[in-house]
């Protein structure tokens, strides 16, 4: 991963004595970025598909699945960083947007199963089971991949917009905002758990067969999804970086520090918060859509309050307002989880808990804080 410099303005320019704008990425950061892109798009596929399994350079299917999954989660962490790290709004409901994106994709994948389900029906199994005779209205567009792509962005986007508009307009701040986002995702979880809601209840969607006509469980399809996820992650990183280096990003930080002052400077914080909130939600939606075909299941558990808190934890572990930090945090925490649940199944929670405590106590600015000590005090 690259190490984008966090400072936006740092070097005073010779001519005016004024600082110049920070570039989108510094030279070494560009190099790191391009290298990461190369790894994702070329090295990983080669190592997985063409290097023979007994070679030490071989990348196992398991690793592909694992890293693919974590990259999706890292997108969420990145989205969380925009809204929490830069704007100071702690969302405890980002899991909802992730799940919504996932459900949109899941609906498409369910339809792709066609008549190969248990009941050999055009309808998804759980609908046959509930004695439904036709698709409910909210499944109308689910057989179109194009519509699915639009909805993956639109559904979380619209939900976030409506919710955010009212919340920000009412000047709900701080923990009050955090708690209502939690209430939102919790309510959504209960709603999705209900079988009558039409999303498969507790089981959610699983047992997918195809995506765009390609079998979903082949190494090739999986690698394509992996590459797409990698590109999405790096793309969102670049997008986020661009956003925060623009004046937009500085207004966000200003909102975080002194919202009243922002208003008296003529900015409408509602618009700014809403914009970043919706962008952040849509990023999560994309992450969810990429996640579902890779892990093969989506269910309301993703909307549980704990799942959303975890996203915040990744961001905090990595280091807020650093962009790269949350990605690192997502990799570290989830990697540790995957590793420890096997090597120390009975003790891994101690390690993970201790990790969180240690990070807060000894690395107040997260892992990235270690790399830039003394940058801000």
């Amino acid at each position, binding site marked *: 991963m690259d190490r984008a410099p966090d400072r936006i303005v740092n070097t005073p320019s010779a001519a005016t004595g004024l600082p110049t704008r920070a570039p989108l990425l510094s030279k070494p950061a560009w190099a790191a970025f391009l290298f990461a892109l190369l790894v994702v798009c070329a090295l990983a596929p080669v190592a997985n598909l063409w290097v023979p399994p007994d070679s030490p350079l071989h990348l*196992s*299917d*398991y690793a592909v*699945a*694992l890293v693919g*999954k974590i990259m999706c989660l890292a997108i969420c962490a990145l989205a969380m960083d925009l809204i929490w790290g830069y704007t100071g709004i702690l969302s405890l409901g980002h899991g909802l947007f992730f799940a919504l994106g996932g459900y949109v994709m899941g609906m498409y994948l369910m339809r792709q199963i066609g008549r190969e389900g*248990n*009941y050999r029906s055009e309808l998804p199994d*759980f609908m*046959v*089971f509930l*004695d439904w005779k036709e698709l409910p209205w909210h499944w109308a567009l689910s057989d179109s991949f194009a519509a699915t792509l639009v909805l993956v962005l639109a559904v979380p986007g619209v939900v976030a917009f409506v919710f955010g508009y009212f919340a920000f307009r009412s000047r709900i701040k701080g923990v009050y905002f955090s708690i209502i986002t939690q209430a939102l995702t919790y309510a959504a979880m*209960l709603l999705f*758990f*209900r*079988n009558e809601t039409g999303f498969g*209840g*507790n*089981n*959610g969607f*699983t*047992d*997918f067969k195809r995506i765009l006509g390609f079998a979903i*469980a082949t190494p090739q399809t999986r690698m394509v999804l992996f590459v797409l996820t990698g590109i999405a992650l790096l793309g969102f990183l670049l997008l986020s970086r661009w956003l925060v280096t623009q004046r937009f990003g500085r207004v966000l930080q200003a909102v975080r520090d002194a919202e009243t002052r922002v208003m008296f400077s003529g900015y409408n914080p509602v618009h700014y918060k809403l914009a970043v909130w919706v962008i952040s939600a849509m990023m999560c939606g994309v992450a969810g859509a990429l996640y579902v075909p890779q*892990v*093969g*299941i989506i*269910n309301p*558990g993703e909307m549980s309050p704990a799942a959303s808190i975890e996203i915040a934890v990744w961001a905090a572990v990595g280091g807020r307002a650093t962009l790269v930090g949350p990605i690192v945090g997502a990799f570290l925490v989830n990697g540790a*989880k*995957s590793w420890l*649940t*096997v090597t120390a*199944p*009975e003790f*891994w*929670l101690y390690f993970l808990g201790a990790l969180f405590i240690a990070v807060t106590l000894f690395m107040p600015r997260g892992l990235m804080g270690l790399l830039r000590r003394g940058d801000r005090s």
Partner: protein
Amino acid sequence: QTSGNTIKVGILHSLSGTMAISETVLKDTALMAIEEINAKGGVLGKKLEPVVVDPASNWPLFAEKTRQLLTQDKVAAVFGCWTSVSRKSVLPVFEELNGLLFYPVQYEGEELSKNVFYTGAAPNQQAIPAVEYLMSKDGGGAKRFVLLGTDYVYPRTTNKILRAFLKSKGVKDSDIDEKYTPFGHSDYQTIVADIKKFSAGGKTAVISTINGDSNVPFYKELGNAGLKAKDVPVVAFSVGEEELRGVDTKPLVGHLAAWNYFMSVKNPANDEFTKKWAAYAKAKNIAGHKDKPLTNDPMEATYIGIYMWKQAVEKAKSTDTDKVIAAMAGQTFKAPSGFMAKMDEKNHHLHKPVFIGEVRADGQFNVVWKTPGPVKAKPWSPFIEGNDKKKDEPDGKSKV
């Protein structure tokens, strides 16, 4: 799949998160069975090496761990899962990688996979007999039914089947009250009040498919609200000895549960099983069980599963999935239930006896009714429309 002198087997039960309450003990049961087998020389002359992982009650993590067990650890078989959703989550992985899963918990049926052996009960091995009993004279001759469950697929399916069954017995829709509560629901005041009200309309029984944590508050409320088993009996399908550990059972005496095994059944196989478990729990210092060892139905099912797999491997002389699947057909095992459990020749489910037990003051069950012998499982319940056309055999098996 066999490396050197050991054969690896995976154990995939949640040791943390909400399901740890139920699943942890299955991990220990599996470890006990493996230790026993190893003590007797292992399988095919090789020792079994358990690979324990913690999927942490997280369904996607179940799938990930399965992939890891099958591709990284190359285990010969996996014993695991409790909830149906976790099974659904791992199923595609087992099918893709042609692995082998032994699933030890009663479930809703409506599924058959060549890569799974179901050692828990199908609805006809638990729910249907229980309701028949409730309607009988001894069971109290119930005429009205409250179907109370946690809102997820197992209770929903079971209740769908039961509704159809009750209908076939002439029970009117107005005499059936179906209710669901969310997972983890902890305040049953309203529900119990509703049951009380409903039961004023005639002899009523409650069929509870409440799962997990909600059972304790439900039973506590029931006890304190004065609903006695002789007035309104509750029969539960997910409440066993382990669940009652957390409840003061004195007010619950007489409420019922239906299972394929109770710790209290008396027979030599069970005596041995419970003794071994008590000794094992003590030796391994298993929290809770070292002081008060309890066995239950899913533990028995886990135990049977491991032994049957061992027998099948020995019969096949290989741990190759397809060969083991073929060899599993018709395997028998003298189960702690006291009966000879048999793996069906075709449908991957066990033939098991059905017991109905009444709660005793000590948290154990008195068996008040049982089937004369093992019952064949019907994973495709005849009470569900369209199931009559289903094959009683997983697809793709014939390719072996």
